[in-house]
Structure formats: C-alpha cells, structure tokens
C-alpha cells in the first residue's frame, strides 16, 4: 500500500486529502502520476505542470524515483509560505 497525500488547492480539486494504492512491485514516479491522472482527471493539468513538486517519504523526488510499498507520496502545488 502506498499513501498519496494532496495539499492545498489540490486537496479541494481531488475532493480528498489522501488516496491509497496497493502495489505489488515498486513503481516509478512517472507511472504513479499516470495512475493518479486516470483516477483524478481534474488534477491532470496540475500534475503535468512543471511547477508541481512531488515528495516521497517527505523528501523531494524526481520522475525516476522508485515508490515502494509503505511509501508516502506528497503531491505538492507551488509553495506560498513566508
């Protein structure tokens, strides 16, 4: 099971804060993104945006990062703190 967390505006657009996926083998970030886009079509434009950042276990990830069972994935829209 991996846990995907949506933040800020994405939470509202997805209509949920979290979504869990059962996976049998580690998958690449880019594959997970395709799965999320299929589940949440309204998030597509945000997930494809160059300004989106993704974290795995609270560290910044790249498109090649492998996601394993038990990982927490954060879908992070552009920050606006400070």
């Amino acid at each position, binding site marked *: 099971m991996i846990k995907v967390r949506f*933040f*800020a*505006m994405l939470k509202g657009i997805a209509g949920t804060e979290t979504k869990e996926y059962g996976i049998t083998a580690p998958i690449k970030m880019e594959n997970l993104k395709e799965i999320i886009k299929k589940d949440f079509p309204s998030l597509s434009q945000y997930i494809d945006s160059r300004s989106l950042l993704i974290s795995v276990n609270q560290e910044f990830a790249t498109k090649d990062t492998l996601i394993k069972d038990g990982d927490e994935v954060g879908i992070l*829209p*552009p*920050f*606006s*703190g*400070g």
Partner: protein
Amino acid sequence: MSELVFIQREEFSVEDVIATVKAASKGIGAVAVFLGCARDFSKGEEITGLDFEHYPGMAENRLKDIRSRALGNFNIIEMAIAHRTGPIDIGEDIVLIAAASAHRNDAFMACEWAITELKRTTPIWKRETTKKGEVWVSENP
C-alpha cells in the same frame, strides 16, 4: 525560551526568538531579522484574512535544513526560523527569520538567503480570503 526552528498556530514572540538566537554566543554583534506580516492587499485585491497549510514533518525538516545550510554556508553564529500555520489575521506576523553573526553583512546575507529559500523549498501554502472568496496562492514572489 523558544526553539530555533518551529511551526505553530499561535503567535510567536519576536523578542523570545531573538533572545534564543542571542543566547548562542556572547560574540554576537549583529542580528538581522526578517518579519513577514499579513498585509491587507495582494495584487490590488483586498485581503481580509489568511490561512496557512503546511506538510507536517516535511515543512519542519525543510526549515531545519535551511538553518543547517545557512550555518554551513554563511559566516553566522546562529539562526532561528519561525512560521505560523492555520488562520492569521491582517497585521499579524507570519514568519520570522533571525540570523546572528559577529559582523552585520554576514547576518543580512544569511537572513535574505534564508527567506528566499524558505519560500522556494518549504511545503507551506497560503490561502487568501478576498471578497470573491477563498483563494489558494500559487505564485510566490
């Protein structure tokens, strides 16, 4: 005494955070402080309130990382970073960065770098309440 890096819902005391930084050394001769506050307009739009969301755990770790890198890359003695989360009224403080050094240029440089880095790398999001409703801010100047 405050911690050196924290995110909290309650207002923080600027005086306490500065005291915590100054307690690091009697060799501190300069403290540069950046204080970000909730202003009542944004891009010409009237703002009546703010609400911050952060990624608990990750946001705190990013702030700790900024402090560590500031201590490593600038000639400073100590740095504190405080950020509020949750609802914030106009005029209230949002963020505080205090950098302490022997000489002032180092403190200013580290403080300016840290607030820019915070905005760039810390998973914190601002929602503004305007007449049109509540709007998530998706750009960060």
